[in-house]
């Protein structure tokens, strides 16, 4: 490795370090962010320690105590098969997080890679990648997800794949737009003139400088992924019974709106609060990472 390259690397890294620290500080100053962190922390706790937190197993049925209203015995009541709604809401956190994290992970890796390649190389790579992305954008997200699940068969894994695929284009587009401006920066030209390989330039110099919008997009995508998972499960295409899932619980509850309001309210509230937390975090991240907003704040 040449001395010049090291200098360029350091510049990129040190250039962003104060931004991170500043951003984190700005983030944590907001009470909204703390609220979101508490919510997401709780969801994470439920996902990891669900078995310990839930008073009952998710599938323990007892028809004789069906439709018990919320009370000391069952905090969120019981459903039509006498299963404890609280336990099922808690135990649904794991599949929900599993689907959203994995699918957004897939979308992130594939989408960002495609965006980097398209934006950096331009030319035919750009044309091919972005036209494919345009085609995928032409389909409504849920329609495309349902089509994918219809082909692959319903289940948790296919839900992950389907949601991952439908959120890939947005990452590709967001990444490419940022890459287009970064690739014209002098430090990229410098790295090129020093003989750095394309892969090194893309991942070491371009990627860190386009990460801010990607981070914001990731946070927002978590919210959309959770909603998509709930929607797929509601349509019977996601998590399969008897395993619990917020969307599936809502689907089951829709037949019993007159028998037990708690069957739909609690899983619905879980979806609402989790999605809200991801959205608010996404907004807060955008506020602190967006250069335009930052300038205003500093001024």
């Amino acid at each position, binding site marked *: 490795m040449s001395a010049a390259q090291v200098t360029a690397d350091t510049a990129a890294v040190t250039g962003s370090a104060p931004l991170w620290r500043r951003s984190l500080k700005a983030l944590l100053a907001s009470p909204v962010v703390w609220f979101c962190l508490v919510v997401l922390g709780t969801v994470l706790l439920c996902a990891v320690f669900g078995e310990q937190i839930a008073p009952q197993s998710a599938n323990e*049925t007892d*028809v004789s105590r069906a439709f018990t209203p919320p009370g000391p015995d069952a905090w969120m009541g019981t459903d039509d*098969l006498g299963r404890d709604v609280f336990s099922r809401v808690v135990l649904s956190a794991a599949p929900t997080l599993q689907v959203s994290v994995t699918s957004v992970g897939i979308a992130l890796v594939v989408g960002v890679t495609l965006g980097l390649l398209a934006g950096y190389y331009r030319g035919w790579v750009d044309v091919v990648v972005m036209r494919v992305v345009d085609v995928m954008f032409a389909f409504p997200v849920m329609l495309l997800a349902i089509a994918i699940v219809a082909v692959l068969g319903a289940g948790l894994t296919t839900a992950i794949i389907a949601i991952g695929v439908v959120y890939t284009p947005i990452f590709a587009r967001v990444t490419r737009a940022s890459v287009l401006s970064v690739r014209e920066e002098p430090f990229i030209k410098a790295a090129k003139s020093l003989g750095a390989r394309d892969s090194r330039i893309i991942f070491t110099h371009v990627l860190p400088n386009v990460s801010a919008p990607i981070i914001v997009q990731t946070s927002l995508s978590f919210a959309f992924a959770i909603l998509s998972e709930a929607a797929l499960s509601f349509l*019977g295409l996601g998590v399969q019974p*008897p395993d619990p899932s917020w969307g599936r619980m809502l689907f089951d509850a829709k037949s019993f709106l*007159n028998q037990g309001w708690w069957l739909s309210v609690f899983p619905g509230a879980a979806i609402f609060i989790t999605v809200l937390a991801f959205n608010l975090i996404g907004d807060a991240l955008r506020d602190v990472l967006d250069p335009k907003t930052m300038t205003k704040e500093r001024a």
Partner: protein
Amino acid sequence: MARRGKWTALAAAAGALMLALTACSAGSGVNVNPSTVTSGGTGGGTLVAAIGGQPDQLDPAVTTSYNSFQVLENVYDTLVEPDQNLAMQPALAESWTTSDDQLTWTFKLRQGVKFHDGSDFTSADVVYSYDRIIDEKLSPSWRFSAVKSIKAPDDSTVVITVKSPSPNLLANLGGFKGLGIVKKSNVTSGDIKTKPIGTGPFSVEKFTAGDSIELEANPDYWGGAPKLDGVKFTFIPEPSTAMAALQSGEVQWTDSVPAQEVATLKNDNTITLGQVGSNDYWYLALNQAKSPWKDVRVRQAVAYAIDRDAITQATKYGNATVNQLAIPKTSQWYTEYAPFTFDEAKAKSLMAEAGVTSANMTFLATSDYPETVTVGQLLADALGKIGITVKIKTVDFATWLDEQGKGNFDLLMMGWLGNIDPDDFYYGQHHTDGSNNYQHYSNAEVDRLLDAGRTETDQAARKDLYAQAAKIIADECSYIYLYNPDVLQVWSTKLTGYEVRGDRAIRFRTASLAG
């Protein structure tokens, strides 16, 4: 509740009906509202009835959809038809005699009956209708399996000869409207699919795809002109939407009744709830072509591990009767027998005896019948306790039928509808050569008893044969029987003269509607 397709199962092997009905509201049914007179009828208004889906087509011998038969019940007639007690009564045939050897049946036809297009009904129409089903192997053709020939010596006589004594011939001929008498020109022109011509109390006036089917009263109906001017069947797949439409007065009758709402509906004085025991039965079947389910002890373990009362409560909310055989208490063929109790310890010991400590089971459920998914979840919990891990596979009903046919299941739950004769309940499902023996059950003694039941003309001896067969079938868990559900229908208190029937036949011929 979904009803599409149930009839598919039915038409594949079901049969006739017999059931003592408890009374529902049977009003005097005389109410005249001249303002809505269009044609036909005597001014009883036009009834709007909500059914669960659109009939695939209206050819009675071809369709297998229950939605089609909901409409066709009012359009076609059969030679004989079941009364409220599901005993066969004269319809297009006024009387019939059998020869001493029980091999020749002679039917005398009703005189002066006309088709909806004004042409005369004769014995040639009967011969054509039946021969068409036999020659073209249409879906009800199995009902003629014992029939050797159908002849029309004169315009008002039909002679049917059978290969062996057939005590269930009348039930086969009149059990459902798939055997309705059609008109040849209507069939050959192809119009029968959307504008069928029958001899029934109502004629089809208009079939609007995706919306409704409109019937008009037949003023020349042999049983007397209907009181209603007409009936409009609308298609509402979602039960809650149908209930809302009923409560708002948009429709006056529906059978899309969610079982969990029954308790509330009983207290609603603007509607009438019709509830009666049915001849339908729901069951579990284990695939005996696969290990370990081929071991009778493992099947019995499953039978002991399930709580039938809980299953019945969770699926039908008390609107069903638990039964460990197929034929309901209300039938004259009922046999009391309940070998299994809910006994986890017994189930575990049977599993141990069979040497099975753990097993994986795929439960084939269908979203078209949500009760199968509900029961799947109860079973996942109950069977988990005796070492069987249940995975629920939920598919649409067409796929479900396909998977059943291919044997791609360990366990499934389904119901059979519209059975009347004991042969309908047991032969196709449990005879080694039965057309619906998807679970691959085979027992020589059961085969012998079921074959004997087909030709035994002494009623008591026949009942005994089926009782013996049914007990073996239950003991060996060819089917694990669950319950007989009630038929649930609701209608506006303005509709009078209508009665809910245990065979799910929907007859509006005597109904009328108040302003």
